């Protein structure tokens, strides 16, 4: 059976996703086709295994954390039917964080709050890569975990520990030996987050 992907997506759904994420109509249909091709079980939702089947993602040192970002804690019924599955809306919602910021000029009528791809939301996405237990603080252990994922076995524990300590020292302003979201934002204020955390979607 050929892929009838686009016919399973209704116009109302496309409109809703457009409003929520700011993607264009054609971008949504093409991303739906991609979603459908990743969904090997053909049940309208992606599981962690579906993501891990992508070789380039499997060899990415932060691959597991990125996959986690698609499965938010607590079941928000709009985005996940079960805890370990994400449907197309949830998929698009996460991808929306990576839309380039300039495109917002076209979509001024987005719903309340900031658009998903604002600088703050992009930073928050990155913050959650570090903050595994979602307590809005990056502890020393959490930082060490991410560092270990990125360097593999090539650096000793002591050296890694000192790197982590130094990073926390530089960032921590209120002395609780953890990095909160505002401290995180402060440290990265000189970084061009809009460019580094954006993907050029073609129409």
């Amino acid at each position, binding site marked *: 059976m050929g892929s009838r992907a686009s016919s399973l997506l209704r116009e109302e759904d496309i409109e809703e996703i457009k409003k929520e994420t700011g993607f264009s109509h054609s971008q949504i249909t093409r991303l739906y086709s*991609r979603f459908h091709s990743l969904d090997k079980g053909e049940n309208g939702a992606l599981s962690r295994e579906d993501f891990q089947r992508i070789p380039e993602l499997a060899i990415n040192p932060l691959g597991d954390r990125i996959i986690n970002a698609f499965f938010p804690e607590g079941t928000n019924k709009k985005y996940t039917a079960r805890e370990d599955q994400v449907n197309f809306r949830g998929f698009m919602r996460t991808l929306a964080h990576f839309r380039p910021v300039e495109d917002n000029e076209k979509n001024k009528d987005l719903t309340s709050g900031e658009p998903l791809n604002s600088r703050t939301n992009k930073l928050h996405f990155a913050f959650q890569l570090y903050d595994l237990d979602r307590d809005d603080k990056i502890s020393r252990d959490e930082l060490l975990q991410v560092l270990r994922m*990125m360097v593999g076995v090539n*650096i000793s524990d002591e050296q890694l520990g000192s790197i*982590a300590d130094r990073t926390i020292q530089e960032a921590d302003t209120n002395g609780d030996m953890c990095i909160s979201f505002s401290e995180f934002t402060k440290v990265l204020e000189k970084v061009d987050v809009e460019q580094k955390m954006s993907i050029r979607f*073609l129409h």
Partner: protein
Amino acid sequence: MGPFMSPFNNLLCMLLGISFTVWFTLLLVFIIVPAIFGVSFGIRRLYMKTLLKVFEWATMRMERGAKEKNHLLYKPCSLNSIIAKESTSLEEELKDIRRNCSSPELDDSFDMSDAFYFCRRGIESIVDDEVTKCFTAEELESWNLLTRSNYNFNHISSRLTVLWGLGVVIRYGFLLPLRLTLAITGVGLLVVLTAMIGFLPNGRMKNFLSEKVHLMCYRICVRALTAIITYHHSENKPKNGGICVANHTSPIDVIILASDGCYAMVGQIHGGLMGLIQRSMVKACPHIWFERSEVKDRHLVAKRLSDHVKDKSKLPILIFPEGTCINNTSVMMFKKGSFEIGSTVYPVAIKYDPRFGEAFWNSSQFGMMNYLLRMMSSWAIVCSVWYLPPMIRQEGEDAMQFANRVKAAIARQGGLVDLLWDGGLKRGKVKDTFKEEQQKLYSKILVGTQEVRSRS
């Protein structure tokens, strides 16, 4: 009632008898006899041209119909990428970050934004990656009147639907039975004749006859699939004592190559019909069949292959080094086993034209019988075969580099993308060594090359 029915019955029987005779005579004259002698009337090419015109008309109608109704026509995304990937490497990107930040002198400075690079690359690979695309069929730009490859199947116009309906009738009512008859004839002749040749004593006569029989039966099978094949550069055809390597898209590749030249096949012995064919083929000329248990033993495989190759009277070996079926848009990693043997390698590039029927066998989606049914009920199989000039392993080149060189030549000729990824990723997980390479690279940037080198 009795005497009233019998003249009617007689008439019916006579009609049936006549139609069968006519049918078989036509079959014989137009298909089987040319197959035996290797000539062609050109009917298939005429058929192909007509079909192309019909498809173009159908696509035009669909586009016009969609515009009238203001629908957006679904354009296959494989033709235009969804995203434009940044081509900066890890090193460039991290240097860029450090340049803009506070303390550039410190060597082991970690920045929280280092994670951004991996994060972005990860999301890019989720949206568009090189590998998973290779294991699903290519999407078409114009519609070829097969429901299985249509994404906009709404009732666009009644004329189109009628044409589609006509297509179904022709394909399933006329072409399919015709092809099945031919296929059965071809396979049956192969089994019977090779078994008969097996009784002859080894010698020139046997080889000659075996060659003729194999060619004839494969040509009948080619016609059974309505395959329209264009061979290029036949002067480079593989010779005895060599190894022929080709890219692999479907089991039909074997039939396509073997109908133009004689090869010794390599493979695992199956049971059932396949096994019967294999066992009878090997009676007429030496093919290399392995038992399932022997396949794992790489030394045994290599020894048998090199023994075969050393004997100049034996036919060239046909091998598909990718090890699995790829969807004919790219060429994946070649397994180095066949390149270690040290004989001349004759590369062959096979490119299918997907407009007439999708030849890629997606073994996870449907099994062999289903696949053959789809093949026989498509319009045709159109492909081009290029025989590339022979290659030898050079001084100082190891088997893997030689394999990559051959792969690049095949990809270039066939217009396919040359990928380094292993075809085994269709079913298995990717090796951790790739991830470890990235981690090592990042560590070097973080703490400097000296420290990392001393640890690994």
